[in-house]
């Protein structure tokens, strides 16, 4: 009887109800699919009946596990892509850390010029979708191996070698450039916020400059560097678009591209198993990172004011170096955008004569002899459908993720310290640990069939909304937790005393006061969803195409003009929205949790 009363009393408080509901829903949407995918690796799928003799669809089998790990072809199916993935991820880490670290040091600790401009330009590749640079690379350096040459060959007449144009080298350069800002933000943040007294104290004790760097600065920055390495590694590992664009011409396979091939082809069982491997690696890496981050906090480097760190004088190098960096940054940020624009007006790429330029890919009606008579972008109804789908999807994802994130924040902060709140906190962050494409595979496996009262969702728009919401919930719930946490409980309790209802407290008190934080919880998922490819690509069907998947298809078909036009459009939307978010809220995707 007392127990019943206790439960009734508990459920009278909205935070308890929210906590309970969210725990149930998120367990269903995040944890259960993990079990489902494990099951799928032991199951015979209909397309595999031919190879697994005498079996029927749905039978239990260890075939996938055997062939992936110890089978005759396991080298090509699994170990080679795994090795490539590791190689790409490690090299990417190296490039990103060195580049980001040098820039961070230059900007925070030297008297280099254009600091503000350099910082904002440097972060740009991270805000842009990762495949932007890959497309730009192709525009520049593609050679006749796959068709028309790129700008570089067209301008100089020099044929780029295959290793330079495709495969490992460009993939690591592009990914390295894409994740360097991440290293820049993390390391720069530590350097900037590091209490100058820490270094000054050493100076007063007569330690030399180099000794200070070696014994004070580096040990303090080290945890940040380690954590950056881990995050870049796991992000590079789960990157799909870049290796797909740059690697496929020379059949350079990594785990994600292999996952895409097998799942879309005849061996979904392999695909699910590869996804599982990626999830395990990703989860391991990010768990290690959490431990490191926890340790870093204990350094408490962000205590004092770091107003007067003495900057290194670059002397004669100052101006040339500043200009060199600026030009370099313009080359990797603004120039790619220009190539997209230019390419979208060219009939055949690599030909820079005037008659080769046309607006027909924008407003033409389509000619049967060019690209299967596909009409220009502005007249193409499929483009509009894709655009509409993209916008609709991102708006829904943003509304759902944002609202749920706010509720997560409310429940977690109000019930702070309880088992339920800690569980919800971790659960809502968990999708962040899952590589996008593997997560897509999970949902494919989970919702391809009817589950309880939920009908089969494969091929519907709803599944895209669902996965987008769950995948970006970590951004939204972090924003929500921060917003509610900063507010403090008293502000809301002051209204409870007057009997203000929960709904009114949210709408009239909490949201208006924390509107900036709340808004960023809505906008970050929107931007992320707009530029997402690998999360959705396994789940779209012709009727639910979105811009990014269309871009991917155009690129596969070699219809570069359309691909370039779309990419230009997406990049502009993402960058301008990011600017808006930045202005309105001070939050920015680059200040998010990375990924």
């Amino acid at each position, binding site marked *: 009887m*007392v127990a019943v009363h206790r439960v009734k009393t508990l459920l009278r408080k909205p935070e308890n109800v929210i906590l309970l509901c969210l725990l149930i829903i998120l367990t269903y949407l995040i944890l259960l699919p993990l079990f489902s995918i494990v099951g799928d690796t032991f199951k015979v799928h209909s397309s595999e009946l031919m190879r697994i003799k005498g079996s029927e669809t749905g039978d239990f089998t260890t075939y996938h596990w055997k062939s992936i790990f110890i089978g005759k072809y396991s080298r090509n199916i699994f170990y080679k892509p795994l090795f490539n993935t590791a190689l790409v991820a490690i090299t990417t880490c190296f490039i990103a850390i060195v580049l980001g670290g040098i820039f961070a040091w230059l900007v925070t600790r030297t008297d280099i010029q254009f600091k503000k401009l350099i910082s904002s330009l440097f972060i740009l590749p991270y805000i842009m979708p990762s495949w932007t640079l890959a497309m730009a690379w192709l525009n520049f350096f593609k050679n006749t191996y796959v068709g028309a040459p790129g700008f570089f060959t067209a301008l100089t007449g020099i044929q780029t070698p295959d290793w330079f144009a495709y495969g490992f080298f460009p993939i690591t350069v592009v990914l390295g450039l894409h994740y360097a800002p991440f290293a820049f933000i993390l390391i720069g943040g530590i350097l900037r916020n590091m209490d100058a007294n820490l270094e000054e104290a050493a100076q007063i004790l007569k330690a030399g400059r180099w000794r200070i760097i070696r014994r004070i600065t580096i040990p303090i920055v080290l945890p940040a560097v380690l954590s950056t390495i881990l995050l870049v590694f796991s992000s590079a590992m789960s990157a799909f678009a870049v290796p797909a664009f740059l690697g496929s011409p020379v059949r350079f396979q990594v785990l994600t591209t292999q996952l895409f091939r097998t799942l879309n082809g005849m061996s979904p069982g392999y695909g699910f198993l590869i996804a599982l491997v990626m999830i395990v690696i990703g989860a391991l890496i990010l768990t290690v990172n959490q431990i490191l981050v926890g340790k870093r906090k204990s350094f408490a480097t962000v205590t004092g004011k770091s107003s007067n760190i003495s900057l290194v004088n670059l002397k004669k190098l100052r101006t040339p170096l500043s200009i060199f960096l600026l030009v370099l940054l313009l080359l990797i940020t603004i120039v790619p955008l220009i190539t997209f624009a230019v390419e979208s007006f060219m009939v055949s790429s690599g030909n820079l004569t005037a008659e080769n330029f046309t607006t027909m890919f924008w407003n033409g009606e389509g000619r049967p002899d060019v690209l299967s008579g596909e009409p220009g972008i502005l007249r193409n109804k499929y483009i509009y459908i894709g655009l509409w789908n993209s916008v609709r999807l991102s708006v829904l994802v943003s509304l759902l993720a944002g609202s749920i994130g706010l509720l997560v924040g409310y429940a977690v902060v109000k019930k702070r310290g309880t088992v339920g709140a800690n569980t919800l906190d971790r659960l809502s962050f968990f999708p962040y640990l899952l590589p996008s494409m593997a997560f897509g595979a999970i949902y494919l496996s989970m919702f391809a069939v009817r589950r309880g009262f939920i009908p089969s969702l494969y091929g519907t728009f709803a599944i895209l909304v669902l996965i987008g919401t769950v995948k970006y919930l970590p951004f939204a719930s972090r924003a929500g937790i921060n917003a509610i946490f900063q507010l403090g409980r008293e502000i809301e309790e002051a209204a409870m005393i007057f009997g203000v209802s929960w709904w009114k407290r949210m709408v*009239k008190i909490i949201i208006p006061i924390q509107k900036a934080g709340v808004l960023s919880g809505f906008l970050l998922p929107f931007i992320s969803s707009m530029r997402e490819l690998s999360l959705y690509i396994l789940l779209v069907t012709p009727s639910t195409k979105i811009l990014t998947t269309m871009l991917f298809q155009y690129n596969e078909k070699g219809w570069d003009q359309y691909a370039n036009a779309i990419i230009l459009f997406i990049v502009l939307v993402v960058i301008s929205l990011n600017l808006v978010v930045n202005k309105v809220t001070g939050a920015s995707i680059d200040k998010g949790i990375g990924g």
Partner: protein
Amino acid sequence: MPEIIIKNATKRFGNVVAIENLDITIEDKGFVTLLGPSGCGKTTTLRMISGLESPTDGDIYIDGNLVFSASKGIDLPPAKRDVGFLFQNYALWPHMTVEKNITFGLENLKWDKADTRHRVDELSDLLRIEDMLERYPNELSGGQQQRVAIARTLAPNPKVLFMDEPLSNLDAKLRIEMRAELKRLHLETNSTFVYVTHDQLEAMTLSSRICLMKEGRVQQYAAPLEIYNHPTNCFCAEFVGNPTINLIDVACYKDDPGDIRLVSEDLHFYFKPVSGLPTLRKGAKFLLGLRPEHISLTENGPINTKVYSTLPSGMETIVIIRIKETYLTSVVFGGLDFKVDSEIGMSLSSDNYFLFDKSSGSLIATGSLSVDQKVSGET
């Protein structure tokens, strides 16, 4: 009559027991202070009575109504308990003007326009905030914000007013001013105040009764001077009073009821009980408590000491004296200055020295003391 009765209230956070079997009655129109070191459960107690926190067990009555009962499944929300709550950080809504801050709650309680208007005028007059009604909280000073918060809390005429360290965010001067205002407000509003603080001086000066807590348990619930003069245990004696009471480790040397002798490292005492019937065992360990003002300094004798340090503050002077390795704090009225290391006499003329049991801390007896300097040896 808004009398508050708390019966057997227990609050656990996970495995941590914040409040254990709390049993107190707060009389109508009282000004009761919950006092204790941080983490003693005083704020939790306040939040439980007001309904912001639900106890794990127990019953709470306000004004004869059962507002919480774990066994009966009753847990009225704060709004139905007819209480006001003043928060430590004021919790003013930053996006509303002062006037809106005051009226928002009233609108929600469905007050009509004229009554609301009247109440705002009344309160802004009482708290002298008439000319701030159109301003936003961040345009006000700490003291002004405090007064607005009080106005907002008083607006619906709560029968009981809860205050959670309301003065701790103010500077020292303003704090003393607001202390006086709160005491006046208590009389003018004619309601029951429950006040949380960790500042013993605030508790002493404001309250009609103090509930002194430690680790989730009530140590003593009595009038301020009662606690000061008759603490139930060593913790209460130490927590209340500034400068802090002197405590000397002693052991019983002679347990004859007519001739009790206690020895410390450096001193030899005769203890004469005034109240309490100590049955002392020879060799048992005790703490002797001497309030600083009960240690008088004299020109010469009966006990010879040395001045170790002196802290004159104008109105009074705190003198730390030393007898071998024993240091005692004494308070002298007036701005006297003593030369450090000079010789000075000390006398123990009060009959209100405390004898606490060393292991349990509880008070065994109060009585008078004298020191046998010869046995104790020369300083």
